[in-house]
């Protein structure tokens, strides 16, 4: 390899590292602000008296919404989006607009659906019937947009999706199974129904993260 090629490679590595650090910092700041705001709102009593299960469910739902918002913002402003999303340039975001747009919408609605359950009666302000109806409508939208997104995916994304699904199943077995086992034997309190839903949502995200990381696809381009 010539000296010029070495210098170019070093510059490229530096650019990727800078982009990775920027994206991580941005995600951290936005995540912190969102969590802080939600906790402030919960502490004010505006969302009723939420226990730990409900607070964690609301936070996980918010994580979905924040992630979806980041993708949505990136799609609306590809030049800015290419600076923190894992794409080569703004044009790639335009190319993937249909797939990513539907995916972001699905994530946002799924996140809001979990948040609605977190603040449902009797502890929260939303009546049980209304919460069920809103949840059902939001999840219907999430399913429709996810299918629309899937139809636009190529074989790599489909492979990652399948692996993430399998990984989520194993994580659920590990986390939910261990928790249930220990509760069954009387060592700890068992998961509440909302905890199971939170685990589905959270572990789906974690599963996708692990699979992407294992493939080395978290490295910024």
């Amino acid at each position, binding site marked *: 390899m010539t000296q010029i090629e070495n210098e170019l490679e070093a510059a490229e590595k530096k650019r990727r590292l800078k982009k990775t650090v920027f994206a991580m910092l941005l995600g951290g700041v936005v995540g912190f602000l969102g969590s802080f705001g939600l906790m402030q709102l919960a502490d004010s009593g505006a969302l009723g008296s939420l226990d730990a299960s409900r607070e964690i469910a609301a936070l996980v739902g918010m994580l979905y919404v924040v992630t979806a918002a980041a993708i949505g913002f990136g799609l609306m402003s590809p030049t800015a989006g290419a600076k923190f999303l894992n*794409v*080569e340039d703004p*044009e*790639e975001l335009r*190319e*993937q607009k249909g797939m990513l747009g539907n995916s972001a919408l699905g994530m946002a609605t799924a996140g809001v659906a979990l948040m609605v359950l977190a603040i449902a009666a009797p502890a929260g302000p939303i009546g049980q019937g209304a919460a069920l109806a809103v949840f059902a409508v939001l999840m219907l939208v999430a399913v429709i947009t996810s299918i629309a997104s899937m139809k636009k995916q*190529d*074989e*790599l*994304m489909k*492979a990652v999706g399948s692996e993430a699904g399998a990984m989520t199943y194993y994580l659920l077995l590990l986390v939910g199974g261990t928790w249930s086992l220990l509760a069954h034997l009387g060592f700890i309190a068992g998961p509440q129904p909302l905890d199971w839903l939170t685990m589905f949502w959270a572990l789906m995200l974690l599963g996708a993260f692990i699979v992407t990381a294992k*493939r*080395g*696809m978290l490295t910024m*381009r």
Partner: protein
Amino acid sequence: MKNRLKAYREEHGWSQGELARRLGVSRQTINAVETDKYDPSLPLALRMAKLFGVNVPELFIDDWEPDE
């Protein structure tokens, strides 16, 4: 699996986006194959080989040898 996709692509003067468009896949897929993060399906490998006018083993390198 190691491959010579990048070399063949550059030989043809195509960008990753151009190759992706010709193959009907995303740029991310081309990038993932070139950086050994993803082994393409057999149909896609065949399409790649056909596009470059070579055989699949010339594009994808497998060191495995059968036992004597």
